[in-house]
């Protein structure tokens, strides 16, 4: 990697991470481990995998998730989730307002200083690019979250049309302090 990941995370407020799907698990782990080193509370939005899978995978890799607070937008859509103290379940991945409210609540109640959005490109499955960008805008300009670091994961080839994915990246790059291509 041509950059120091931890340094970039410490230095920047809004980071956009681009990665290939085949590298996704490994690269995401690098990011999470680097964020973990900052010893801060993390609001983790699980957009592409349910909370149960994400938390288990993190623990299996030896990552301490005691500082993680999750927002799961998938499980409730398919079944009644088992209640978890460190997770809010949003009923519908299409309900951007509910996701935003869950993020605000988690950040405020748990005093998280990092928001990790895994993965923002997956939102394109549910709504058009401009709605996803607008949602992101609202997240970036949310009052009371000026000091919260926002880390967004984008898969370069997510299961959405390439053109839409590129549009999303171009629009988000206008606001990102840095875009890091993780390969």
């Amino acid at each position, binding site marked *: 990697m041509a950059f120091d990941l931890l340094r970039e995370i410490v230095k920047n407020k809004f980071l956009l991470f681009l990665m290939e799907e085949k590298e996704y698990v490994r690269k995401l782990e690098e990011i999470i481990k680097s964020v973990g080193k900052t010893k801060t509370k993390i609001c983790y939005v699980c957009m592409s995998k349910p909370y149960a899978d994400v938390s288990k995978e993190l623990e299996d890799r030896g990552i301490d998730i005691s500082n993680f607070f999750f927002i799961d937008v998938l499980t409730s859509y398919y079944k009644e989730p088992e209640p978890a103290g460190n997770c809010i379940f949003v009923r519908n991945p299409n309900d951007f307002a509910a996701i935003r409210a869950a993020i605000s609540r988690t950040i405020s109640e748990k005093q998280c200083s990092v928001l990790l959005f895994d993965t923002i490109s997956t939102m394109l499955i549910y709504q058009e690019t*401009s709605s996803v960008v607008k949602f992101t805008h609202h997240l*970036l*300009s949310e009052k009371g979250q000026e000091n919260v670091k926002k880390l967004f994961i984008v898969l370069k080839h997510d299961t959405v049309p390439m053109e839409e994915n590129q549009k999303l990246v171009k*629009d988000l790059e*206008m606001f990102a302090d*840095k875009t890091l291509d993780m390969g």
Partner: protein
Amino acid sequence: MAKKRIMIVDDEESLLQLMEAILTNEGYQVITASDGKECLEKLKTDKPDLILLDMMMPGMSGREVCEKIRENPKTKNLKVAFLTVAKFSEAGRDVLKKMNVADYINKPFDNDDMIRRVKKIVG
């Protein structure tokens, strides 16, 4: 002397009305459009002195609309300023320079500041 013409493009109806009222009161002739498609359609017959373009709109983002304005030989030299809720990053401001964007106004804005910025661009 002919009034300077300003096109405001925003999907928030209340904001369009407010900006139209403010700028009309300042002596400008105002044209409005509620999305990028309507803006590009109106630009086929209208050449405003300034386009105030919201970054986040349904269908096409302000960036996409601006790119299309710049691609078209008939509109490529029109003055554009963005309206935005989120703040542009340094990288974003570089993109604005490349797109020859005159300025950007953060929403919500102070009315006097918005007028001052518009006057600075179109006089």
